[in-house]
């Protein structure tokens, strides 16, 4: 009872807008939202049960049911023989550093492209968009040759630099979308107050880009975390291996045990899901903060 009244007042306070609409429409909306949520949660259930099965269940009759024997040993074999712990740390390091570099370079470039008027800014913008068009397979060998000539293989930076370069165009494009929304009057008044371009950037624009940061970060993360091609070719010592390569190495040439692969995928994915869920509330706060300021 108490719960019910509480919820009612809560909704009465915050969701007046929805209350105005037709209750039938509201119910339909929720049914739709919940069904869609289930559709999107299913892969997580699937991945989890997959990680606890053996090959005969993964490929046999029981493809989506709960495992008949809960093979927790898949996890220990992924951790011990597969060395997933180390690879996880490597991936985390590489991804974080790449995102940081990419965001920093992108924000600076976007500022120059959108908020300073100069001839050729459009051309430069198009030029930087080229990055979206390059298929990663095509650049493996040329980049590999460059890195090898520079004796720069088998370090973390061997991956960090190419990753931040490859996420750059996307980051610029997303931050452009956000930065053009910031009123130009702000720059004007800053200039009148005597701020130079640098100060305007750091003191005025950067704080306002906070909501965009998380968005760019997520999208850059998506590109780096699961990247396989570069990581496979550029890194040859297992000390610097990242998760996607480590997971792939769990399958054998002639025979493959899929259970430990499932377990490794859970290890690779669940922490990010948890971090994402935790962060997403922060992210939303930042969206709302951005909206109020904008």
């Amino acid at each position, binding site marked *: 009872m108490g719960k019910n009244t509480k919820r009612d007042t809560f909704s009465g306070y915050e969701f007046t807008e929805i209350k105005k609409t037709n209750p039938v429409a509201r119910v339909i909306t929720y049914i739709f939202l919940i069904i869609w949520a289930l559709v999107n949660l299913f892969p997580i259930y699937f991945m989890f049960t997959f990680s606890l099965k053996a*090959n005969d269940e993964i*490929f046999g009759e029981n493809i989506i049911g709960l495992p008949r024997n809960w093979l927790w040993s898949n996890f220990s074999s992924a951790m011990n023989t597969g060395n997933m712990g180390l690879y996880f740390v490597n991936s985390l390091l590489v991804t974080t550093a790449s995102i940081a570099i990419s965001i920093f370079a992108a924000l600076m470039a976007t500022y120059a492209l959108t908020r300073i008027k100069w001839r050729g800014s459009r051309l430069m913008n198009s030029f930087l968009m080229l990055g979206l068009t390059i298929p990663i397979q095509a650049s493996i060998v040329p980049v590999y*040759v460059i890195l*090898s000539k520079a004796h720069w293989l088998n370090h973390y930076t061997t991956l960090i630099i190419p990753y931040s370069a490859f996420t750059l165009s996307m980051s610029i494009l997303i931050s452009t979308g956000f930065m053009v929304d910031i009123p130009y009057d702000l720059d004007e008044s800053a200039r009148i107050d005597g701020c130079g371009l640098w100060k305007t950037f750091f003191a005025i624009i950067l704080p306002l880009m906070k909501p965009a940061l998380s968005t760019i970060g997520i999208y850059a993360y998506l590109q780096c975390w699961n990247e396989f091609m570069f990581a*496979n*070719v550029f890194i040859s010592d297992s000390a610097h291996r990242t998760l996607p390569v480590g997971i792939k190495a769990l399958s054998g*040439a*002639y025979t493959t045990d899929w259970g*430990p692969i499932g377990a490794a995928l859970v290890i690779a994915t669940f922490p990010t899901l948890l971090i994402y869920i935790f962060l997403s509330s922060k992210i939303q706060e930042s969206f709302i903060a951005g909206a109020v300021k904008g």
Partner: protein
Amino acid sequence: MKMKRVVSMLLAGAMAFSLVACGGAAAPAAPAEPAAEPAATETAEEPAAEEPAAAEASEGGAVTLEMWCIATESDSNRHAYEEAIKEMQANHPDVTLNWEAFENQSYKTKIKAAVQADEMPDIFFTWSCAFLGDFVSAGKVYCLDDELAKYKDELPEVMLGNTTYDGKHYGVPTTMNIVGLFANMDLLKEAGYDEVPGTYEDFIKCCDALKAKNIIPFGCAGKETWCVTEYLESVIEKSVGADALNDIFLGRATWNNPDVGAAVDTFQELVTNGYFDPSGAGLTNDEVKANFMAGKYAFYMNGTWNCADFAANEEFFPKVKVAEFPVINADKATLGQLIGGPSDTLAVAASSQNAEAAAAYAVELGKLICHYGYLDGCGLPAWTPYGDTSSVNGLTQAVSEICANAKSYVLFGDTAMNADDANTYLSYVDQVYGCQVNGTQFIEGLAKDIR
């Protein structure tokens, strides 16, 4: 291409495999060899005889070598690699080996990129014939003639055919595999057969009987075309003979051979008669293999590397037998003509700083990997087996008996041909399986498209 790829190997009776055949039957009565249990440590004595030579080659000083291979944690060869490397470390404390294992498919990308950028490790795993051949013709591989000469008695020259280019040896074979006809005897019994039929007519009757009992005769993964070639190549070989097929694979004869066309039609009849699982078109090999082990198909033609896996499954192992595909045209083909041969190979980079030491190390390591791999049932030995081999699983022993009677081998088409042609070939095989082209279109198309 002037490179001569000797693939067809005529094994004169008792050559490589006689020892295997004996080993299976008379292992306890092999007093010349060390006793069964401590085999791993004791057999170390034998390679030790070669050790002074090897140590000489490595100039005595401490050397660090790097090796890439595909024996990942879950690969059936992993254990053989670990044992072999352990033994090598005991024999050569002055040599440090840093080895890394990569996944099969992505390794192909990795090693090719490494060759292009001259970043190869000292020792690397490779596939024989065309795959290694491209690296050899680019001058990236170290010649192993001097090193292999020391092992003449243990490694038959025929086993080096696939890694010999212009008369020079560039690779150390480890284990080899052939295509086997695996049969689920429980299902055959249901159809009234106690043995795998020995003639093609009986074989077809058996398939019909299976079909009448609602049992699917063949399982084949249409999504992975190499699985189709396991069937198709056997049918072609048993129709036109090993030499004819071999000549075509190696570019010495044209694809436009009506006998091959007829053989392809024979294969397609198997498809149109509904002997193959129609769902196979959308399945991967892992899925098909799981189906076979779950008792969905009576036959499964695939590489003999599966023996270890089948043997490891206690429930399934008693049911499965391996046999040779029957002869279709007795005028041209005979039993003992097999598909397969040594393909897994170790090679040494020409760019290696310690190429000589690496060569000595690679050859000895290859021998040990072969030894332990055979004991584990991962494949048949390319090297003459030594020590007690009675622990090898029954299926692998059955395969070595088939091989003991082998007259000639034709290497898998997609390994024998160069990369571009192999993929053209695979795309035609795909179309044959899907009944998009018939035998005539197959031979004419390949004759035109293969450069």
